[in-house]
Each structure stands twice: as C-alpha cells, then as structure tokens.
C-alpha cells in the first residue's frame, strides 16, 4: 500500500500543475486522489465528523479521499486555501458553517462565501444543547429561564470564543427570551468543559459536554435542532419549548471551489446522499452527535444564504463586534 500511495501522491502533485481538462473528466471522476481540506487542527470536531465521511467516500469511489488539516484563524486559513484551489473536482472543502456563514459578517475574509464556492452536499448537523451545572439547582429549560429572570447576570455561560457559533447560540437565547447571562469566552469546547465541570462556570453548549450529561454530571436542558437526540429522548427541542427560529445550527458540509464542473458536483452529491442513508453511516454520525440531512446542492445554496442572513441579523442585534 505504501508504494502505491507514494506514487499516487507524486502523480497527483504532478498532475495538479496542469489540471485544465476539467469538464471532460466528469465521466471518469475521480481518477486519482481527491484532497479534502479541513480548516481546523486535527483531533477536533471537524475531524470526527469528516474522517468517517472521507473513509466512506474512498470506499464508494475506489479512490482515496485524503483529509488535509489546515487549521488556523477560526477556519479562515483552510477555507482561503480551498477557495484558491483548482476547480477540477480534486480539491474539496469540508467545513462547518461558521467560516462561511458567520465569519464574513464579523470581519473581512479573503474569500466570498457565496462566490468562492459551489455547494456540494451535507455531511452532518451537530446536535447538542445547553447544559447546566447541577449546583445551580434547576432541572429543566423553563426553570433555567425563570432563574435567570429572577437573577439577571448571575448565570455564566462559556463559549468557544467570541463570535463562534456557540457564542451566537447564547446571544440567540438571550435575544429570544430576554434573559441576562454573562458570557465568558474560552478557547474551544474542551477548555470550556474544564471550568464547567467543577461548576466555576454554569452553562455551555458544546458536543463535548454530552458524555457528561449522559453520566449525570451535567444537566442537558434542550436540544438545538429539529429533532430530538436519540440518546436523550426526554429533552425537548427549542421549537417544542416554544422558541421558534432560534436554532443557530452548526452544520458540516462539503464545498467545491467555484467553477467546479456541475456534473462532478451532482455525482458526488448523489453518492453522499446514498451514503447518508446507510445505517452504518447513521450510527457513526450519531456517535459524534451528528445527523446528516439529505439535500441537493441547490437547496444547500439556499440554506447557506438563509444561514448567513440569520447570523448577520443576530450579530447586529446583539452588537457582536470584532475590530
């Protein structure tokens, strides 16, 4: 396997230099290794959702789909690299929505979320919800809201950073319910969990907290998604709680550099939907708290636009700024 990989890699690199025969290749695509850029450091949430997919796609197409981690700047560096890659179907981007749907509203990005990419398919929506430390004494979402209304500014919430999706979820919660919770930024979910477990900080909203909710160390209050989490059948979704349009989803998907031939995109999307339907993939995804919706590239483009708009409004309303 080693030598074939080496030769494939060498060949791929050589061929990358002159990849102009893009459109004619759709029939035979993929004929060599496909590079999938993950704009985050290895070992994180993106890896956990992305690697099973890369594996399945490699099996399905008989060619290696290789993940390349290019972390940095909240995903900007990897996304920028992908936007500048050749649109021949041999470089793809697997990313959560944040760098495309949130970041451009907060700062100037070296890419345009709509114009630089063509959507391909959905990979997984992450389900999680607000968890709270038991020391606060509340057990349900409504109790938490009441507590917060009676004690404004007393509850604390740890996010993965200023302007990240988890921060936006807090802002959305505050916006829709009118409660006041103190926001404490951290550097990612694990960092937050460190202070939430002993109760130094009360709440968070990250997948890393779910195993602890299962073990009873933390209390899960709600689920941020359209469906309930199979491991927590009693916990309601925000919509069920009467708070509509408050989702702030975190969804992973694959994009291709703008200009990638339409038939390659269609082929990949069809295969992705096929994979998403298998029980094996569903099980693998649920293990990392994700569900993969089935969506065509066109609808995905619409979904992205809506997401960008919703996030921009929220950022405006909550006055989140980055200089």
């Amino acid at each position: 396997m080693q030598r074939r990989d080496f030769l494939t890699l060498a060949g791929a690199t050589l061929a990358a230099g002159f990849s102009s025969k893009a459109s004619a290749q759709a029939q035979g695509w993929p004929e060599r290794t496909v590079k999938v850029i993950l704009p985050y450091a290895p070992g994180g949430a993106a890896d956990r959702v992305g690697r099973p997919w890369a594996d399945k796609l490699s099996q399905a197409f008989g060619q290696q789909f290789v993940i390349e981690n290019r972390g940095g700047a909240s995903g900007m560096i990897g996304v920028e690299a992908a936007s500048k890659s050749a649109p021949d179907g041999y470089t793809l981007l697997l990313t959560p929505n944040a760098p495309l749907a949130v970041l451009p509203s907060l700062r100037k990005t070296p890419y345009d979320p709509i114009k630089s990419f063509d959507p391909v398919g959905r990979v997984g929506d992450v389900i999680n919800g607000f968890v709270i430390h038991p020391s606060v004494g509340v057990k349900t979402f409504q109790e938490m809201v009441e507590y917060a209304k009676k004690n404004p500014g007393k509850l604390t919430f740890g996010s993965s950073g200023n302007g990240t999706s988890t921060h936006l979820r807090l802002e959305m919660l505050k916006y829709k319910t009118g409660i006041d919770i103190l926001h404490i930024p951290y550097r990612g979910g694990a960092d937050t969990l460190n202070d939430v477990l002993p109760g130094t900080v009360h709440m968070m909203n990250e997948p890393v907290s779910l195993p602890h909710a299962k073990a009873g160390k933390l209390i899960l209050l709600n689920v941020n998604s359209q469906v309930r989490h199979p491991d927590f059948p009693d916990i309601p979704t925000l919509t069920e709680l009467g708070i509509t349009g408050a989702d702030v989803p975190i969804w992973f998907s694959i994009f291709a550099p703008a200009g990638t031939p339409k038939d390659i995109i269609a082929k990949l999307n069809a295969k992705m939907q096929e994979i998403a339907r298998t029980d094996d993939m569903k099980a693998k995804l649920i293990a990392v708290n994700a569900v993969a919706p089935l969506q065509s590239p066109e609808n995905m483009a619409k979904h992205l636009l809506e997401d960008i708009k919703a996030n921009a409004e929220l950022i405006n309303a909550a006055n989140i700024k980055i200089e």
Partner: protein
Amino acid sequence: MRIRSGQDIATGLLFLAFGLAAYWIGADYPMGSPQRPGTGVLPRILAWCLMGTGAILCAKAFLADGTALTRWAWRPVIMTTLATIAFALTVDNLGLVVSMLLSMTLCALGTPETRWREYAIFCVLMVALGVGMFIWGLRMPIPVWPVSLPGALSWN
C-alpha cells in the same frame, strides 16, 4: 560620561526600540473596562515594562563596567538566512528535492570549511534520507518534484 559597556547600551537601546514599537502599534487597541480588560491592556503594560528595562540598562551602561560588543560573523548569518528563505520559497513550487539541494548548498556556502566533494556525497545522502523519512515514512503531503515537469513523468 562615557559608555562603559557597549553590550549594555546596545541591549538597552534594543529593548527601548521594541518597547516603543509595541506601544506605538498597540496604541489604538481597545482598553476595555476593569471588569473586562481589553485587548490593549497587556500590550501597553508590557511595552512600558520593556522600555523601562531598556532605560535601566542604558543607565547601567554609563554607570558600570560591562562587556563590550563583539564582531558579527556576517557570512554564516547571511547564508543561513538565505538558505532558510530559499527553502521556504521553493518547497511548494519546486518540490522537496530541489529546495533541499538549494538550501543545503547555501548553508554550506556559509562557511569556508566546506569541502565540496565531501559535501556532494553528504548532500545526496541527506536528500535520500529526507525523501525516505518524510515522504515514504511519514507520508507527508509535500511535493517531491517540481510541479511543472511534463506529463511524461506521471506514473498513473
């Protein structure tokens, strides 16, 4: 008053320069409030500290004997720097082999002690070792050859 320590005054001036630069660049970072210290708080504090340290050193240079400055060895400094920059600029475009050759040779040029025949053999060994270890062994996605070689070299 004479300078009694070239080293102290040089270091002192260096610290002052860095401190000043830090202060100036960070001058309009938001300072925030006591509850939420802002982005600019620590940079400003550090800039002051660094400038203070620099000032003390400059004062010491006049008041106490210390070491004098020594000469710089320009050749190795320049060649090593060039070697590193050469690697950085060529590894993506011209591949590992070429960039290795380029940077190692520039480095070797940095010392008069290099014996060229010996170097040539060593060079070949290093390139083989490098490619073997990093491409084969660790499977790093680094281009080995220049990207623009004709398709005749494509194995697939």
